């Protein structure tokens, strides 16, 4: 089996998949990738299992090599990367030859980048998932010197694929739906919330992000202490001081702050990928309209797969043409090294 070695690592590298649904009653939130859409993009490009685990990189990447040649993708936040000095484009499939160094730098757009290998990470699952859940004490941040097992690439010979760039890194209008506590805020406060342009604060992590704003007052009517209640990712909590926080994948399951509404799952990747300072505005949808936006991961994957296009390369654009196996053209070129 291929083995991955991490030679250097940014501070926010964790293994993530689509999380552990089904444990809310026991106090464990689903967790998983902060931007699950990026995981699905990687799976669509590689044609592999969307449930496979990948490496999530918050803000900064790292350098990596593998013991055997393996295909991979970089999706989510746009991070400049190269293989032994040769540029490796975002949202494309690539082949990493055995021993070559993949170097991934800081995010130019967005926050969470994803490095997905075609065979997935094959670390031991805990409760049917490999996702690191830092607040629950499951897994740990990845560090330089770590070696991790990868699964075999099920489609080594697949033709290279690309996806068009995503526009979810620039914030903008975010759709929200009413929740159980929306009516704890009077109509005037809800209207003011919809009219405000917020900025993504520098404070944020996998549990949630804080929003900055100037002017306005979003405190609840009555100022009562509310009984703690169930929360879900996307919920917009307003603290006693009137500071909004949007909850993300690794939030707790119960919270005491009142929530003015909830970002619909379709727009939550835009929140996760909003870098500090990104402007965010909120538009309330009716419940019926919000419900029509619900889409399973399977349906999202099918839609993304339709957007994948084969990469057709002009030999003139290939600087290191002689490095390629030109005779058969279809093999990764490391066949003799493989058992």
């Amino acid at each position, binding site marked *: 089996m291929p083995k991955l070695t991490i030679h250097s690592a940014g501070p926010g590298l964790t293994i993530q998949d689509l999380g552990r649904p*089904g444990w809310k*009653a026991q106090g464990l939130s689903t967790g998983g990738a902060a931007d699950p859409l990026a995981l699905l993009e990687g799976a669509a490009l590689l044609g592999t299992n969307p449930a496979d685990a990948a490496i999530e990189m918050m803000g900064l990447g790292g350098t990596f090599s593998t013991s055997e040649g393996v295909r991979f993708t970089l999706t989510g936040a746009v991070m400049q990367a190269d293989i032994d000095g040769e540029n490796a484009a975002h949202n494309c499939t690539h082949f990493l030859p055995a021993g070559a160094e993949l170097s991934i730098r800081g995010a130019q757009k967005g926050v969470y980048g994803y490095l997905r290998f075609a065979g997935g990470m094959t670390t031991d699952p805990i409760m049917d998932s490999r996702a690191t859940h830092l607040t629950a*004490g499951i897994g740990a941040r990845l560090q330089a010197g770590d070696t991790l097992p990868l699964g075999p690439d099920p489609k080594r010979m697949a033709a290279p694929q690309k996806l068009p760039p995503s526009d979810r890194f620039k914030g903008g209008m975010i759709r929200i*739906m009413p929740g*159980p506590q929306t009516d704890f805020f009077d109509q005037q406060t809800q209207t003011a919330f919809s009219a405000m342009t917020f900025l993504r604060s520098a404070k944020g992590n996998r549990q949630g992000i804080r929003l900055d704003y100037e002017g306005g007052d979003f405190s609840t009517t009555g100022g009562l202490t509310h009984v703690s*209640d*169930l929360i879900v990712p996307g919920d917009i909590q307003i603290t006693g001081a009137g500071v909004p926080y949007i909850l993300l994948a690794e939030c707790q399951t119960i919270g005491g702050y009142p929530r003015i509404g909830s970002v619909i799952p379709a727009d939550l990747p835009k929140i996760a990928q909003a870098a500090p300072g990104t402007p965010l505005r909120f538009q309330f949808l009716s419940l019926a309209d*919000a*419900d029509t936006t619900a889409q399973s991961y399977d349906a999202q994957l099918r839609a993304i797969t339709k957007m994948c296009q084969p990469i057709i390369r002009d030999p003139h654009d290939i600087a290191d043409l002689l490095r390629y196996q030109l005779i058969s053209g279809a093999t990764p070129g490391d066949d003799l090294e493989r058992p």
Partner: protein
Amino acid sequence: MTADVHAPELRPLGVDGILVRFARVLSEDANARALSFRSLVADAAITGVTEVASSLVSVRVGFDPERTTREIVTKAISALLDTPTATDLGPRRQWRIPAAFSPAFAPQLQEVATLAGITPAQAIADIEATTVRVIAIGFAPGQPYLGMLPDHWNVPRQSELTEGLPRGALITAVRQLIIWAADAPTGWRHIGQTAFRVYLPETSQPFAFEPGDAVQFQAVSDTDFRAIQQNTDTNGGAICEVLR
């Protein structure tokens, strides 16, 4: 019980969930109704319902929008709410958990006893004599909110937060106890110590408690407690009896 009995409120909680809220303030009655309703919905096995979770006063019914709709699940929930099953069946399981209460293990017991108008010895006696229930699980995986202690334990949270409480700490506020499992600061006061792990992620049964479980604490000497801490054959010396 004071009158906080009004019709449950059904509200959306996400595109794939409905919250059934039995009250806007915590009461034992609302909590009992939430716990019973959670079992009722789980047992009803409604088509497309994926997950049923309860909190102090509410139940979230999660569903798969590809297999059902909000309207259909709402109808099924409403029908269940109309069935006369408000009677609590009582706890399914009864836990007995050893705890140490000497000042070394219970740095704020004296303070809480003073606020409650009793002596530390009476406080320990109250804890031992009260069978509390798991009224909610949350904040940290598997972490139970246990209630309710007698009225004089209605001690508010302290305004300063305590950092770095040990796992298994017994902490209290507003007539409730928590066996601490989080890695975060808290305003609850530290009045005892267990060696009990509520959350065992590496095992096939990662969570010790279910909502509704009954729990009794048993005071043990520091010597006995240290022996319990050393013994890895049991989960903090706890005994679990299945009642039904």
